[in-house]
């Protein structure tokens, strides 16, 4: 369950940054992303999947959240 910092890049995409691993990837899709809640299954552009219980109301970015690996 790594701590992940989510922030917006200049183009407005969400970035998924794991400081411990020095991994920075763009988020390709988020399962739930509306006025009510944010989260669920998150897929990155490198194809990996992560999961977070939906947060309501949606958090303000940048923020640090705990994700689970989605593929297991």
């Amino acid at each position, binding site marked *: 369950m790594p701590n992940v*910092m989510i*922030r917006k890049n*200049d183009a407005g995409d969400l970035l998924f*940054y794991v*400081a411990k691993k*020095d*991994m*920075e990837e763009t988020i390709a899709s988020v399962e739930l992303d509306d006025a009510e809640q944010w989260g669920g299954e998150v897929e990155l*552009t*490198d194809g990996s999947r992560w999961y977070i219980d939906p947060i309501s109301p949606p958090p303000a970015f*940048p*923020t*640090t959240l705990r994700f689970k690996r989605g593929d297991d």
Partner: protein
Amino acid sequence: MSALTREETQALIQEVLEVYPEKAKKDRAKHLAVNDQSVEQSKKCITSNRKSLPGVMTVRGCAYAGSKGVVWGPIKDMIHISHGPVGCGAYSRAGRRNYYVGHTGVNTFGTMNFTSDFQEKDIVFGGDKKLDKLITEIEGLFPLSKGISIQSECPIGLIGDDIEAVAKKQSKALDKPVVPVRCEGFRGVSQSLGHHIANDAIRDWVIGNRDGDESFQVGPYDVAVIGDYNIGGDAWSSRILLEEMGLRVVAQWSGDGTLSEMELTPKVKLNLIHCYRSMNYISRHMEEKYGVPWMEYNFFGPTKIAESLRKIAGFFDETIQANAETVIAKYTAEYEAIIAKYRPRLEGKKVMLYVGGLRPRHVIGAYEDLGMEVVGTGYEFAHNDDYDRTIKEMGNATLLYDDITGYEFEEFVKKVKPDLIGSGIKEKYIFQKMGIPFRQMHSWDYSGPYHGYDGFAIFARDMDMTINNPCWKQMQAPWQQSAEQEAAPLAASA
């Protein structure tokens, strides 16, 4: 030699790898790549931030070097104790040329070396008492210091000293920040982890110090310059451009910087990052906690300077945006004259770089402004995100090398035959003896600044005097020269 094709570059890498044993070959192959601008994610073509192979020659530093030498060292009004044996601090003292103003030994301490000089008994019985005494002594001798940082060397972590306890006690006694930094040299694979540890220490001990204190008058145009270490005065030649644009530079990190500047940084409107590798962690933290946006900028060469000035201005209102144009216009005649003077002398020359945090990609634009071409580049301690940012800057089919070994670098140079190499002091004399012009690109070979428009003039002059130095024609003993070679210098001097 004309530029290599993709296949030729690939073949060159294969050829160089040939001498390694099977396992080493497999490992090193991952760190060498042919650049392909269409690749979006560098991890697909190059591996970085891995442990160097035992037995090869690497030029990496240690975590202590990353923390004491890079991030903390240039904070001029603090005293940074190299805690442990004397060598780590003594041999790295004042070599980096990060300039500052102040009276050394009175209110600034940048070029001094403070160490606890561990002896055998300190290793056996622990060094906490010594550290405590040392801090008291420092306070007596240098009462104007604004704070103290304890930079751990290898033994501290090995013998399990409790420097945090000492720091806490002394911080209370002196009423000054005393910051313990756990940057023992054995941590991580290179100095890079030292940067991260140093950033975390700043986050924990410095950044929050002025939370809730509103006595500082904030302005709408406050910015902080982060990750400019003022090598040869770099930060000064950058700062004037920002100030001419109408921005107020509240803090300079950490070249010529002070503790109080750092404490005020969370109050600025925008953090400007020069060295992304060593300071991105703290910038991300400030963005999350204080909502201060950050951006990377590049002040090498007029093309990149103009690009960066406009991007910085984009964060502010029209006044600043108009000012940015005025600043660019003001210096246009100046840099055009420089290009007119040096470009004909440097046009088409090929450069290979191998440096540290940001220069392998940031200086490319400055070389291109002079009509030169960077045919190979690499980092000592970069991570994937650095290579992501490099791929687009480099031409197709050029060489990328990560944590290159002494052998590989020499072989590449023999085959690629660049007209100039920009790297560190450890490479300098090898390549000069091979007869190749060389610039030391860590501390600008005793020159600088290279940032900003003023710096570009010096950069262009330095490259010219290195490449076109007559000494490169004297590499052969006179009796070994052919008749026409002998005639040439005579004709030139006549």
